[in-house]
């Protein structure tokens, strides 16, 4: 029986990713138990590790839709496995994956996915030059809103 090479490579990568993810969670638990409990009285100031939630549908009928499960699962996998490893810092206030999750919820799968993907295309070093002054928050990030025509 012939096993394709790409299949072996992907399984190895995913296995390493899951192992690394486990290590990361373990390290965070050690930090929270030993350092934060002793030195910080107000725990609300410290951002603890929290698994990010699955995309929740507006209506219960949407659970039957397979497209919903695919999109929700892919975003969940990215946010909790891949994004943790990258440790990236986005220039937008709402990160690309979270923005896509919200826009799918509001605009539906096709329009929401395109809307989220467009932000992913625009996430580069020159992006701040495109936006006017008022769009920047005090922390230097761009305040991104899903539909500015309605919300502003």
């Amino acid at each position, binding site marked *: 029986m012939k096993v394709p090479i790409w299949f072996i490579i992907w399984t190895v990568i995913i296995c390493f990713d899951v192992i690394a993810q486990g290590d990361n969670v373990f390290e965070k638990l050690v930090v929270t138990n030993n350092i934060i409990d002793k030195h910080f009285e107000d725990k609300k100031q410290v951002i603890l590790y929290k698994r990010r939630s699955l995309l929740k549908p507006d209506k219960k009928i949407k659970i039957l839709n397979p497209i919903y499960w695919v999109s929700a699962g892919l975003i969940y996998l990215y946010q909790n496995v891949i994004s943790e490893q990258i440790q990236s810092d986005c220039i937008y206030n709402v990160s690309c994956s979270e923005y896509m999750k919200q826009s799918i919820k509001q605009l539906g799968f096709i329009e929401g996915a395109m*809307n989220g*993907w467009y932000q992913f295309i625009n996430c580069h070093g*020159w992006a701040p030059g495109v936006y*006017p002054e008022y769009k920047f928050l005090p922390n230097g990030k761009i305040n991104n809103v899903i539909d*500015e025509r309605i919300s502003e």
Partner: protein
Amino acid sequence: MLLMKEYQNNYYLVIFIFLNLFIGSSQTSSYTFEQYLINQRLKTDHWTYIHFLEKNHLTTEDTIHFYKARYYLNYDEDTLFLKHYFKSKQLFQKDSCHLIKASISALRWSKKSQEQWFLSLDTDLVCKEFKLKEINKIWWSGNKPLNFSAEEFPYPLQKDFLVLQKSVKKKKWKSVLLSVVVPGLGQYYLGQKQTFYIILLQHLLVGGMAAESIYRLGYKNIYSIFTIGVFGTFYFSNIYGAYKETDQIKVRYKKQFYIDAANYYNFYNCQY
């Protein structure tokens, strides 16, 4: 010493409040006291003062709404301000200073409350006050920029207005058609040169990957299907982005124009 000073201040404040309540009981409004509370940012004290007047029926209902409207105006709460403003409209319109102050801060509000405020102003009142007329003109010019020229506004606002005028002239079908022909050209048409270069580069990379996989492995291979899918999502999201951005840049430049105008006229302070 510092503690002593704090106690002294509180002592004066208590006397001040007592005296003002005494004056307030004789149906006269104390502008200086209110101004003191606003300048010192004593929000809770200001609210207790108004609440005390309301509870003991020391003033009429109209004046209580008038006080509340001014209170919410100073602490930037537009919806509550408008609620009390409509209940004491006749009283508020006599106070031209606060009318100007409210219309300056209205430029920073949401679209809905802006419409509520500016459409409620009487034309005679607007014609009488020069500054009110100017700010009213700014709001109308933001809504219909093609009916005005940039020379009508003060110099620091002219640049923003010209950008707004340009953005209004942009058409959806043009930006969509351009981004269909060349990915990112729609964004160039909208004035976003940086995104054009980035989008074109991304499409060249992904498109090149897809073309190579089709040439080497054929259409039916999983890898080539994956690359074509990625290129498709890039391409269609670029078209959708151009379609969406034409509307959104109008909103953005309009809001920037309003905020800059509000900052330009912000030196205005009410004197009692």
